[in-house]
Structure formats: C-alpha cells, structure tokens
C-alpha cells in the first residue's frame, strides 16, 4: 500500500529530525560547555571558602593544603560528572532525554517536593493541556464557523469587517491580550480573577465529577447540533432535546455552589479567552480564503444547481474539500501555540508548562529546560505526524498521487 510506505517514510524522517532537535537543545542548554565552566568555578569557590574556615586545614603546610584541596575538588567534579568531555556528555544526555529519563532538577521542586524532572513536568502538563485544548477548540469552532459565514457573504461589509478583525487579532500574541484583559476584566471591571490557578486559599475540594458539567454541556450541545445536520427532518426533535439538556446542565452548573473545580474553571476563563482571541482570527481568515477558493469551483456550482440547501453546499462540499489545507495550516499554529504559552502563562501566573519553562530559565535549571524542550519537540513531532496521517485519510486524491 502506498499510504503505508509513505507514512513509514515520514515517521522515519520525523524520528531523525527529533533526535537532531534534542541534540541541538542539549548542546545549547549546556551553553556549548559554558555551563560546565560556570559550575566548576562555583565548586572551586565554595571549596576555597569551606577550607578557609577550617582551622585544622589552615595549620597544614601549603603543599599539603594544595594536595588535599585538589583531591576533594576532583572528587566533587567527578561526582557531578563535570570532568567528562563535552561531546560524549551531550550524547549521553541526548540518549537519556530520548528515553524520557529526564534526570533531577537542580533547583525546582514539584508540589510534593520531588526533584525528578518528569514529576515536575507531569504535575504541570495536565494544566497546560486542559487550558490550551479548551481555548483552541473554542477558537477553532468559532473561527471555522465565522470563516464560512464570511466566505458566504464575501465582499459584504460584514465580511470586510470580520476580515480586518481576524487579520488584526491573529497577529497579536495571546500574552498581549492577556495583559489587556487583566487590566480591563481583572482590575477595571473586576469580573474575573487576574491570575493564578485557584483562589488563595482555595475553596473546599470537590469530587472530580464536579469538573465535568461544563464539558458535558458543550459536548451535548455539539452532539445535538451535529446530529440534526445529518438526520432527516422528522427526527430533528431528538437533536433539539439533546441541546436543551445541554442548556439545563450548564444552568445547573452555574447555580451550583462555588467549589474547587468551579474556582479552577473560573480562573481559566481569562487566559483561555486571551488564547482563543489571538487564535480564532487565524482559523476564520484561513477558512474564509480556502473556502472562497473552493466556492467558485464548478462542482460547488453544480451542487447548488442540484437544489442542495446553501448550508449543505457549504458543509458537505466546500468545507470537506477545503479541510485538508485548513487542518494543515492550523495544526502548525496549534503546535506553535505550545511554545507561545511560555509568556502567556507567566503573565497570568498560571502554573503550567510555560510558566515552568520561564522559572527554569530564570533559575538556570538546565535539566528542567532540556526536559521541557524535549516535551515541546515531542509534541511538535506528534502533531506533524498526525497531520500527515489525517491528510492522507481526508483527501482521496493523495492516495492517487502516491500510487
């Protein structure tokens, strides 16, 4: 099969790229050997001071002093692995990074005091994952919907206005919106908390199930909506019922007492909105442009002539054809958004991976930096691979090309 071989080749290439990327990171994170020199100098200084305060040592003759000092110094250097040659060492680091043995942090600790880099990262990962997935899904849904609408009304004042809005919002990164949102909604209107993961002190804990009502509501609403689009007219009532249930769940959640998870979600609103606000424009603008291209294709015209409803023409014909390029250009934005999280999370004081990266950099904690960069590279590689996969599934023409 052509597709299988194609994917295998891509996977091999991505794996090689991944290894090189990690190696480059390791080399840079160690400052081309500079970090080792700094550490050695520091150990030297520390030892000097420790010995200077030792009266027994001070009474020894100078040669004996130097000998003793060198023994201790070399032992310390060896114990910390600083005497190793730079090249073999970086290769060793790369190998362990690839096995996801990320080592121990020099400064940072996880919430329960562990110095293991994996523990620190995996404590933070879910927070970032939830925040950015939610924000990007919202942005994608709103953006695609808006893009379709804009393409449908192409060149109208609505389209022009929304195009300008999209273009101007997506060039600005989320952290700048973050700053403005904090000023306006956090300080000015005082509607949302200006930062942090939870309130201090956090509200009473709640069972994990309390986290789900908003997700369930969104899921139900979407399910109902999608069902109605694909089901024949007489069964539409089921879809509306499901959507009504979604609304009920949402209302119930809003009325429920303020617990831990509600607090979490409340704190997530501003950062998620900032991210979604800076991303939706890219979805809507890309969708609009690609849809506009497809919209004038003859087969779309033909579909309209066949008496299809305008909505069906858009969703079945236009969007389906335009989706592979939309997915490509946007999966890459999503991947880039991961690294963009560094400043956004810092601004909102949101303890996710991005903020961790910032802390690790400020404290010059090389193992954490390497570990995080490995994670980022892994996320990117996986995104690109999934992209190749979806692409070959979405568009039957790809198969023909590979044959």
């Amino acid at each position, binding site marked *: 099969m052509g597709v299988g071989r194609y994917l295998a080749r891509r996977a091999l290439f991505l794996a090689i790229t991944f290894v090189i990327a990690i190696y480059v990171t390791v080399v840079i994170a160690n400052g081309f050997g500079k970090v080792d020199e700094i550490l050695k100098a520091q150990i030297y200084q520390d030892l000097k001071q420790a010995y200077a305060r030792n009266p027994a040592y001070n009474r020894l003759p100078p040669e004996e002093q130097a000998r003793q000092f060198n023994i201790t110094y070399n032992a310390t250097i060896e114990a910390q692995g600083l005497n190793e040659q730079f090249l073999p060492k970086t290769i060793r680091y790369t190998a362990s990074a690839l096995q996801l043995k990320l080592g121990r942090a020099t400064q940072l600790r996880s919430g329960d005091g562990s110095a293991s880099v994996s523990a620190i990262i995996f404590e933070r990962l879910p927070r970032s994952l939830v925040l950015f997935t939610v924000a990007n899904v919202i942005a994608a849904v709103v953006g695609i919907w808006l893009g379709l609408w804009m393409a449908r009304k*192409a*060149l109208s004042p609505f389209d022009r206005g929304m195009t300008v809005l999209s273009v101007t919002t997506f060039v600005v990164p989320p952290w700048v919106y973050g700053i403005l949102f904090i000023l306006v909604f956090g300080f000015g209107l005082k509607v949302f908390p200006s930062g942090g993961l939870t309130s201090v002190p956090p509200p009473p804990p709640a069972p994990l199930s309390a986290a789900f009502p908003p997700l369930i509501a969104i899921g139900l609403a979407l399910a109902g909506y999608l069902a109605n689009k694909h089901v*024949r*007219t007489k069964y539409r009532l089921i879809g509306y019922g499901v959507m009504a249930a979604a609304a009920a769940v949402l209302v119930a959640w809003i009325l429920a007492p303020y617990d831990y998870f509600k607090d979490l979600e409340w704190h997530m609103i501003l950062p998620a909105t900032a991210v979604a606000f800076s991303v939706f424009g890219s979805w809507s603008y890309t969708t609009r442009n690609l849809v506009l291209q497809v919209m004038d*294709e*003859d*087969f779309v*015209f*033909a*579909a*309209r*002539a*066949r*008496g*299809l*409803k305008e909505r*069906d023409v858009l969703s079945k*014909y236009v969007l*389906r*054809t335009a989706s592979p390029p939309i997915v490509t250009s946007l999966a890459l934005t999503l991947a880039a958004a991961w690294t963009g999280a560094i400043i956004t999370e810092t601004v909102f004081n949101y303890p996710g991976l991005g903020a961790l990266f910032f802390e690790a950099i400020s404290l010059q904690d090389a193992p954490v930096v390497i570990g995080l960069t490995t994670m980022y590279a892994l996320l990117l590689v996986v995104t690109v691979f999934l992209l190749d996969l979806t692409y070959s599934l*979405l*568009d*039957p*023409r790809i198969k*023909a090309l590979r044959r």
Partner: protein
Amino acid sequence: MPLPVLDVKNLVLWYRTRKGPVHAVDDISFALEAGQTIALVGESGSGKTSTANSILRLLPKNVLRYEGEVVFDGQDVMEFDNEEFRKVVRWRGISMVFQGAMNALNPTTRVGSQVAEPLIVHYDIDRREAADQAIEALGKVGLSGDIARRYPHELSGGMKQRVVIAMSLILKPKVVILDEPTSALDVMTQTNIINLLKDLKNTEHLSYIFITHDLGLASELADLVGIVYAGQLVEVGPAEGVFVRPKHPYTGKLLASVPRLRSEAAPDFIPGVPPDLTDPPPGCRFHLRCPVSFEKCGWSAPEFIEQVKLLQISEETKDKVPAIEAMKAKDTQTLLIKPVANGTIAEFAQRLTSFIAQDQETYRFLKSVESVQSKAKVVEVKLHEAMPPPLIGADWRASCWLLEAGGS
C-alpha cells in the same frame, strides 16, 4: 398549439463590476415545447451560459438586475421564493449538464453517492435505495454499476461526462440544460455523447436547452436554434430554416465562418471583436461588424469618429478622407468637424459630402449621415437616430432593420 414546457419572456440579468454594469442577459425570450431541443449558439462571452444559469437562478454574488418571466410547466417560477424554487425547479424540473464535467464532480466523494445525492436531497429517500437508483441511472448512460464506487479522478473524461449526464437525469426532469457538454472531449467521444443524448431524449421524453458555439453539433441535435449576440437573441427559429436561409446578417456570417471539408472557398470571418457588455453599442448591437449595415442601424457620433480615425490611419485610405484637424461629438447623434485651414468651410463640406456619397458602399458607417451643415468654423454632421431593431416574425424571428424593409 400545445403549451410550451418552458417559456422565457424578457429575461434580464445584469451584474455589477468595477467597470460598470455588465448586460450579460439583456431581454431574451424564447419558448420550448415538450420533447423539443433549442440550441443557443453564440461566440464566447455572448451570454449563453448566463442565460442558462439565470433560468436556474444560479446567480453571481454581484447581481444588479434580475427580472423577466420564466414560465415552467404553466407557472411563473420567477415568482417563487428561493426555498420554493430550490425545491420545485432545481433538478426536479430543470436539471443541467455543466461545461467541463471534470470540474463539476466533487473530487472527495464517490461517484455513486454524488449521482444519488439529488434523490436524498429532494425526496428524502433511503440511502440504499438511492444508491440502487443511481446504479440504474448509470446503466442508462452506458456505465457499469461498479463505477459508482470510484472517485472522479479515477474516471476518463468521457466517463465523467456520462456520470454528469446520469446525475442530471436521476430526478426525471422535464428540461435538461446542456452547457457545452462536449467542449472538452475529443471528437470520437463527442460523437458518442451526442448520440447518447439523442437516444435519451427519445426514451426519457426530455426537452433540451443545448448551449454551444459549435454550429455542427447544434444542427445534429436541435429542433430550434437561437442565435445569441451580446446578451440578446438576434435570431430564433426552426433549425432547418435558420441553418439554410439565415435571416440575420450575423447568423449568415457565423455559418460562413464554419470551415468545410472538400470546399474550395476559404472560411469567412467576422471583422472586429464582440462588443463590451458593460457598454453595449446603441441600435443594433451588431452594426459595428455588420457587412450590410445601413442608415437605421444605430451609429453614434463617438463610433463615427472612431471609424474616421481608423480610415485616417490606414495607408490605403488616408488620402480619400478630407483633411481634418479635429472632431468632436456634440451629442450622441451629432458631431462637429473642424477642417484644416485650407479653403472655406463650405468647400470642405462639399468635399465631405462627396466623400460620403462616393465611399458609403465600402465604408458602411458613412451611410448613417443624415445631413452635413456648414457652421462658422466647423461642419456639423447629423447622424440618423439609433433604435434597436425589434424581433420581427412569428415562429421564426430575427431582429434586423433590413427585414422590416422587406429585403434580406
């Protein structure tokens, strides 16, 4: 006389562009009886396809004027709202075979489900049943059922064209619009498709609106012929008549431009270019290129000036034209000519008049001159009034002033 299945009356479609309104369809009328085929023939850009699209209400986004009557099956469907039109007319009543079948198929969907789709859209039929009907329809156009599972890019051009025809027949419409159905195909496939269309017309009792620029193909299939020029029908009548003894000069030129095997005569051509539809010429729209145009055909002052300038430029003719320093249009039918200072105005007027009298058979625009008058410094030339010619005749109509005069 049986009621026509489709009666188009005074159909108009203008759309807006930066250069101004485009008169794509400008007052077109024709009637089509059940089982008949009308061929709409014209040069590219003359408005044939726009006519077809406006019958199905497939309009560009920048519509400026869209009016007239389209009586289908006794109902004026122009009165329908969009939803009703979509449900009743599109594909159920009138279906269409598009220009360039390869592009009319959705590249990401299997052929079978595309053929079946109108059934699901219009009749809410079960998918399995629709698929069976689609295979049946494919059979009618000579394709085997396993084609249904293929994607468009896996088919040849001729097969795709057959698929598109099958799709147009799936709802058993009364009228099928064929928009250059064979223009992208090689000659052998073209013949096959035309034969298929002929067979289907008889077995399925269809009426065709056949849009083409190929007079040969039109004569194969058509009962009626409509000649489209610059957004208007200049001649419409029975095929045997129009093709043998055309009434309109344009039809004549069109027929003469078809190259023939085993004929000594070189194919004729029509001088000039088709007019710009944003600013169609006054009077008869063909007068600029017409070999037999005369007084009434509708020359305007700017056109007249343009023609005189052309004569001045050409090596052959520049000596014939009296020396002119400047020309100016006073209004649409009056122009002022300032001679080169050489003799009196009266003398110049004299020269001009004799030039007009002498050469008006060769340069027919000169026929439009009604009077030449000497003024203080200039000569005022008045042109005949510009009036669009009416469609003259009953079953075989043509719009040319010559017909009114009784000649041909």
